[in-house]
């Protein structure tokens, strides 16, 4: 035992406490050197793969401190050296520098430093690796047995002190990497910057010739692990920057998800047997190029050659290996990657996996949101298109198909070409293509496909009336036609309207990666939309044909519109439902709801325009208004008014700040009064048209920053039911009221000269109300406020009201 007054344990621990970096190892060894009255101290560590039976194995300098740094420190000893003997015997030893057991020729460290005495003690490092602590002394004072005892004690505590220091350094590395991740900008362009910061931070501790991070972006390049960040001393050409599973040692780590650490690759030939044993199936490929490069870098080929070390840790979580962190060659002492470094590199990999996984999720999510947004914008413009086309009675269907396919190419990643095929009797006929490298008229590749088996995959879809089919492997599709030989994956979406299948939208891609999860849904919606518009186009074609045949344009329009308006309105109503379903579904992000509301509002407006035209046609042809009578239930009335309020509000110019409000009190009062009997009878569709028309007018003529109030209830001693829309805008003079109801009278022309409006809205409302035995009343109130009111007689059911309800009605 050492003398207690020397107290070196406390001094060593204090020295440790002052150390923050790996240079602290040198400082600890300096303290050991000073305690031992020596000139220098080295720690030798046995490299993995040693075989004591055949006396094969190598020792490397794990750390050292010497007084004269100009003297080169050699790095490697064999197991049969003096140090090796101490390691094998497990006993400390004090020898003189001229001991023949010291390896010949003697290292410069001994000869140039004038070392006279050497003292050695075996050690076991914190991770179980065998090691030897070696101290040199120049003074002509031999080591005593006490010195030997002290050294033995130091050899016992040093691994703990080392372990403490390396743990601190390692944990700080992991912490710092997490810190970099957490503070990383979430923008997708900055992830490379973040990875580069991480590489730089790792290299602060690892001082490697090269540190690289390879990652797989499973969505864009599955199976390819690409170098995302690197810090290297290599100049000029860089080595391999993409790996696959099993490719070289890096690929081994990716495939097996385990860390590989080699202390010295320069002895690869000798070590192959244990490397193969430890890492079964590993192959090095061009990873060994590091050896030659590192030799050139160190410019030495003597016994002072540092080891050429290599460590590679997986970036993985429980389920996936996302990539690797690879470090090669160390430029400062210790010149190899220690076991603790491999351990912390692995820990860093775990954290990085978590970050990368989140990044990929976010990326996928952003892409999905972006594709929904794009789809919504596309649908909006298509609806605008329809709205305008309706006014012109013209239609370019091919252009519209192409527009829809362009949208598909934008929202479904990797789409290379697409095709619209329509059913024509017993065939599917290609009517529009986008992105194909063959012309539309090339009958060998496009054209006519029989619907009878064995047809194409598209004809199969039509004949079986299947829904959307997504084939990430085109070979899984039934009856694949080889019009596109390099097609790898395929989506087929039915173009349908209601029960009728008009054709198929084919979306093809050459990319091997799978379609994103929402691609099928998107293609399905597009197919549906195409079906709706195809229907609409057919009706407009009929209309144009009728126009051509008849001279009397107005009469023709009126008649034909009357015939087609039911068909025309249906696709837009379906669009309305799509928008409504999307708005209510969870698949669409909340941020898109407003846009969907607006889209729904637009569809609703298109429907109103079409319905007005239809009514106009019927009335112009003296065709009586057909009323499909049903009961107007109070709660249903309230529900549709709520929907209309939202539709109209969504189309209001935000700058005008006109607010649509629904005063529900009149309806709620009735709900509370146990109204069991019929209130009003009439046609729901016509009622909706009336309410919408007067709301449209209110929106058009209201002043900015005003409110449009919609209300309803029972009036006139319980004999009438009313729905009222009150707005504040252009003043209506009492003498103008009768004119407002006239066909073609545009009140706005005299007042505001708005570009819109055909002056048929109120005329139609008046006609509908009269057909119901009710009336349209327009009452100027004061200050430009106007009450436009639909009044229906309560034809039945008053007798069924309870007394309370009767009283309430009487009050109204």
């Amino acid at each position: 035992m050492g003398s207690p007054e020397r107290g070196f344990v406390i001094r060593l621990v204090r020295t440790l406490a002052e150390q923050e970096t790996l240079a602290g190892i040198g400082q600890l060894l300096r303290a050991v050197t000073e305690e031992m009255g020596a000139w220098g101290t080295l720690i030798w560590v046995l490299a993995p793969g040693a075989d004591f039976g055949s006396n094969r194995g190598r020792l490397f300098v794990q750390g050292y401190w010497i007084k004269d740094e100009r003297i080169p420190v050699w790095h490697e000893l064999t197991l049969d050296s003096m140090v090796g003997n101490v390691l094998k015997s497990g006993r400390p030893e004090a020898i003189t520098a001229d001991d023949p057991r010291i390896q010949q020729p003697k290292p410069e460290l001994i000869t140039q430093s004038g070392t006279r005495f050497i003292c050695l003690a075996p050690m076991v490092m914190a991770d179980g690796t065998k090691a030897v602590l070696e101290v040199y002394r120049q003074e002509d004072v031999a080591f005593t047995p006490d010195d030997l005892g002290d050294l033995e004690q130091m050899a016992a505590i040093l691994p703990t002190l080392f372990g403490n220091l390396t743990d601190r350094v390692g944990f700080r590395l992991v912490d710092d990497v997490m810190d970099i991740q957490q503070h990383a900008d979430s923008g997708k362009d900055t992830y490379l910057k973040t990875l580069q910061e991480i590489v730089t931070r790792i290299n602060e501790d690892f001082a490697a010739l090269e540190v690289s991070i390879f990652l797989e972006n499973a969505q864009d390049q599955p199976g390819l692990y690409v170098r995302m960040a690197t810090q290297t001393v290599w100049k000029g050409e860089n080595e391999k920057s993409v790996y696959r599973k099993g490719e070289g040692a890096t690929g081994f780590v990716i495939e097996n998800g385990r860390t590989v650490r080699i202390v010295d690759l320069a002895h690869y030939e000798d070590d192959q047997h244990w490397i193969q044993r430890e890492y079964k199936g590993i192959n090095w490929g061009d990873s060994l190029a590091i050896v030659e490069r590192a030799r050139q870098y160190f410019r030495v080929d003597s016994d002072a050659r540092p080891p050429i070390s290599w460590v590679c840790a997986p970036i993985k979580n429980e389920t996936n290996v996302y990539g690797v962190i690879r470090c090669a060659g160390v430029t400062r002492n210790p010149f190899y990657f220690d076991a603790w470094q491999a351990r912390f590199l692995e820990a860093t990999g775990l954290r990085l996996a978590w970050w990368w996984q989140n990044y990929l999720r976010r990326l996928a999510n952003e892409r999905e949101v972006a594709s929904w947004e794009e789809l919504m914008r596309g649908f909006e413009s298509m609806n605008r298109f329809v709205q305008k086309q309706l006014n012109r009675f013209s239609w370019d269907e091919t252009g519209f198909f192409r527009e829809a396919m362009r949208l598909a190419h934008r929202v479904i990643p990797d789409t290379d070409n697409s095709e619209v095929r329509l059913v024509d009797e017993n065939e599917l006929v290609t009517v529009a293509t986008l992105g194909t490298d063959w012309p539309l008229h090339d009958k060998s590749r496009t054209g006519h496909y029989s619907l009878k088996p064995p047809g194409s995959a598209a004809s199969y879809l039509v004949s079986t009336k299947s829904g959307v089919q997504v084939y990430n492997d085109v070979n899984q599709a039934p009856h694949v036609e080889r019009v596109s030989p390099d097609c790898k994956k395929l989506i087929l979406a039915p173009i349908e309207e209601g029960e009728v299948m008009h054709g198929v939208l084919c979306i093809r891609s050459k990319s091997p990666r799978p379609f994103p999860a929402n691609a099928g849904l998107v293609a399905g919606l597009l197919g549906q939309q195409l079906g709706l518009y195809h229907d609409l186009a057919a009706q407009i074609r009929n209309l144009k044909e009728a126009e051509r045949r008849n001279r009397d344009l107005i009469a023709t329009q009126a008649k034909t519109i009357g015939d087609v308006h039911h068909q025309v309105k249906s696709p837009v109503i379906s669009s309305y439902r799509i928008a409504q379903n999307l708005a209510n579904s969870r698949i669409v992000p909340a941020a898109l709801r407003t846009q969907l509301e607006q889209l729904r509002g637009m569809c609703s407006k298109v429907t109103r325009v079409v319905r007005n035209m239809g009514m106009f046609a019927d009335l112009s042809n003296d065709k009586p208004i057909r009323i499909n009578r049903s009961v107007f239930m109070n709660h249903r009335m309230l529900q549709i008014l709520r929907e209309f309020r939202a539709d109209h509000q969504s189309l209001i110019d935000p700058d005008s700040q006109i607010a649509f409000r629904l005063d529900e009190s009149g309806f709620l009062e009735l709900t509370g009064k146990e109204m069991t009997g019929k209130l009003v009878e009439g046609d729901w569709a016509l009622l909706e048209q009336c309410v919408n028309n007067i709301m449209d007018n209110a929106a058009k003529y209201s002043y900015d920053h005003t409110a449009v109030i919609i209300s309803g209830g029972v009036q006139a001693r319980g004999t009438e039911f009313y729905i009222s829309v009150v707005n504040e805008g252009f003043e209506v003079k009492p003498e103008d009221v009768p004119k407002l109801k006239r066909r073609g009278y545009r009140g706005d022309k005299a007042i505001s000269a708005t570009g819109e409006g055909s002056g048929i809205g109120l005329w139609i409302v008046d006609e509908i109300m009269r057909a119901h035995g009710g009336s349209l009343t327009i009452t100027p109130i004061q200050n430009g406020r106007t009450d436009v009111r639909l009044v229906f007689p309560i034809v039945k059911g008053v007798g069924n009201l309870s007394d309370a309800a009767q009283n309430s009605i009487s009050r109204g």
Partner: protein
Amino acid sequence: MQLKILLVEDDHLQRNYVKHALEDGLGATVEALCCEKNFIEAFEEIAADPPDLAVLDVMLMWARPSKEQTGTPSQALSPEQAGLRCAAMLRHDERTAKVNVLLYSVLPEQDITNRELAKGVVTIVKEAECHNLIDAIQGLYQHPVS
């Protein structure tokens, strides 16, 4: 060169859409006005720093409904001519005579070009995605109209 474009369109849905399409598609700066009255009121300002190009809807409302408004000038009673009147104002003022004018309307092209005020003005028919408008503008600046 960053184009400076004046857009006059009364439908706010169209206005926002076309504005963003021109900004995104051409990298232009776009000033948007919503009615004929706005255009007339802002004319001095427009003339002082004229845009490179004016994109005008043809059927325009005279003014947004407003409490302060006293009435509509008789010449503004034909909203289907409003965009053409704006175009004529630009053409007849020497400060803005060189501003390129595009009429962007839902009306069929010949409906517009037959009108007296529209002589010599380029007309583009409104489309869903404004591709034709953007193409036309790009064409205009590759082969400028003198």
